[in-house]
Every structure is written in structure tokens, then in C-alpha cells.
């Protein structure tokens, strides 16, 4: 168990990701140009795509952690899995809400079955199922094992869902889904890439904190057991 001192890595990461987000925001509102057709409302795009990316990345990490757990059977893999899910759920929800807020001015409706929104919805549902599964299992070993299996199988279906949804939407192109309808300039691409990077850094920071929280929970359970045995 680590001695409780100052968490230098945590502070450094927090400062870095905070700075990255601030820079990203500046780029979004100042550096990126005003979009031709949609106007300023298009600026939602950068953080919308970035949050969708983190939602997916978090799921991928859970997938890897599941494989790791089944291979090694060490609690730390399960800790990563459950921590990543909590962060992933938050960002996928963010992606869906911001996507919805963009869809309304862009296409006149709060919901559209456009590929990124739809796949985000599917991922959110899978996340929720994962959490419900964990909640319904007693015994930490079984919970970790079953969750690992589900995380693996579920993640494998996501690329397949992505292709299916895209083809589903392109066969009947409506005004809603014929491309983003955006004129992308190089400044926009840079802003997008930087936002994605800033969000990834933010994800790493939050993941680390959530992992430490889960580790502390383990310590607490251990201490409680010790006291019970007295």
C-alpha cells in the first residue's frame, strides 16, 4: 500500500489536461473559423466528436482489461475495467447529448439515426448492460470474470455495429445523413485533432483517479474484514 503523500503524478496530469482543455477551447472558439453553412453552432462538433472518441477508447480499454483479467486473474485488471466503464459512460452520454444539441439546429430534429449518434447510443446501452451485470453478481471473482467475458464479446460487436449502421444509413441517404454538410478547412482539422488529444489526456487523468478510488475501496474492505476478525 502506497504511503499517503502528495500524488505528484495526479497533480501533474490534472494540470496538463486542464491546460490542454483550455487550449482546445480557445482553438474551438477563436482559432477555428466560422463554418460556411451552419455558422458558429458548428463548433459543437469538436467536443462532440472528442467525447465520442473517449467513449469508444474507454470501451476498448475495458476490452483489453477483460482479456488481461482472464489471462492473469489479478484484481488490478478488473479495477481498470470498472474504472474505464464509469468514465466511458460519462463521455458517451456527453457525446449523445452534444450530438443531439447539434442535430436540432443542423437538421431540425433532436434525434437522427446518423451513424455516430446511433453507435454512441448502442455503446451506451452496452455500458449500461455491463454495469447492470456487475451489480447482479455476488462474489468479486465471479463478477470480474463474467464482466471480463461480457466486455470482450460486447466490444467485438461494436465495429460490426458501426459498419451495419453506416451501410444502413447510406442505402437510403436522406438530407439528414448525406455527409456532415460541413466544409472542413485545415484549421478545423487541427482544432479537431487537438481536441481529441486533449480529451484523451483528460481520460487518462480521470482513469487514474478512478483507479485509485477503486484501490482505496479494496483497502477499506480489507480493513473491515480485519476488524471483523478481531
Amino acid at each position, binding site marked *: 500500500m502506497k504511503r499517503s503523500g502528495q500524488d505528484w503524478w495526479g497533480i501533474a496530469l490534472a494540470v496538463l489536461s486542464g491546460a490542454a482543455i483550455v487550449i482546445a477551447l480557445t482553438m474551438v472558439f477563436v482559432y477555428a473559423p466560422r463554418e460556411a453553412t451552419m455558422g458558429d453552432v458548428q463548433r*459543437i462538433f469538436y467536443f462532440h466528436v472528442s467525447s465520442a472518441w473517449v467513449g469508444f477508447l474507454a470501451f476498448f480499454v475495458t476490452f483489453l482489461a477483460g482479456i488481461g483479467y482472464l489471462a492473469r486473474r489479478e484484481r488490478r485488471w478488473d479495477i481498470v475495467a470498472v474504472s474505464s466503464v464509469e468514465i466511458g459512460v460519462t463521455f458517451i452520454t*456527453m457525446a449523445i447529448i452534444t450530438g443531439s444539441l447539434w442535430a436540432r439546429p443542423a437538421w431540425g430534429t433532436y434525434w437522427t439515426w446518423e451513424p455516430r449518434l446511433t453507435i454512441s447510443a448502442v455503446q451506451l446501452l452496452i455500458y449500461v448492460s455491463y454495469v447492470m451485470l456487475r451489480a447482479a453478481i455476488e462474489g468479486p471473482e465471479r463478477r470480474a470474470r463474467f464482466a471480463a467475458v461480457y466486455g470482450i464479446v460486447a466490444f467485438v460487436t461494436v465495429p460490426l455495429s458501426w459498419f451495419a449502421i453506416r451501410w444502413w444509413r447510406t442505402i437510403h441517404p436522406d438530407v439528414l445523413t448525406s455527409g456532415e454538410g460541413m466544409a472542413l478547412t485545415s484549421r478545423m482539422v487541427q482544432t479537431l485533432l487537438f481536441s481529441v488529444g486533449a480529451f484523451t489526456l483528460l481520460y487518462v487523468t480521470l482513469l487514474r483517479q478512478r483507479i485509485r478510488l477503486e484501490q482505496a475501496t479494496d483497502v477499506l474492505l480489507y480493513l473491515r474484514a480485519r476488524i471483523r476478525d478481531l
Partner: protein
Amino acid sequence: MENLSYLVAAYIVFWALTFVLVFSIWARQRRLEQEIAALAAQLKENEE
């Protein structure tokens, strides 16, 4: 442009969700650390 309200709302959502997540983790961490300290002290007492 009246659409700016959507833009503002979207970034409020970003901040709100991020803040809720960060605060939630921080609050739980604090509560846990307090309980851990209390239990550790209790254990120490009993061992003396």
C-alpha cells in the same frame, strides 16, 4: 444567430458532466480516506 443557444448548451453539458464526474470521484475518495483512517486507528488501538 439564434442557434448560439445550442452551442452554449452543448458546452455547458461538457462542463457539467465533467464536473459531476470529477466531483463524484473526489467526494468518494475523501469519504473513503476518512473511513480508512478511522478503521486503521481502531485497528491500532486494538493491537496495543
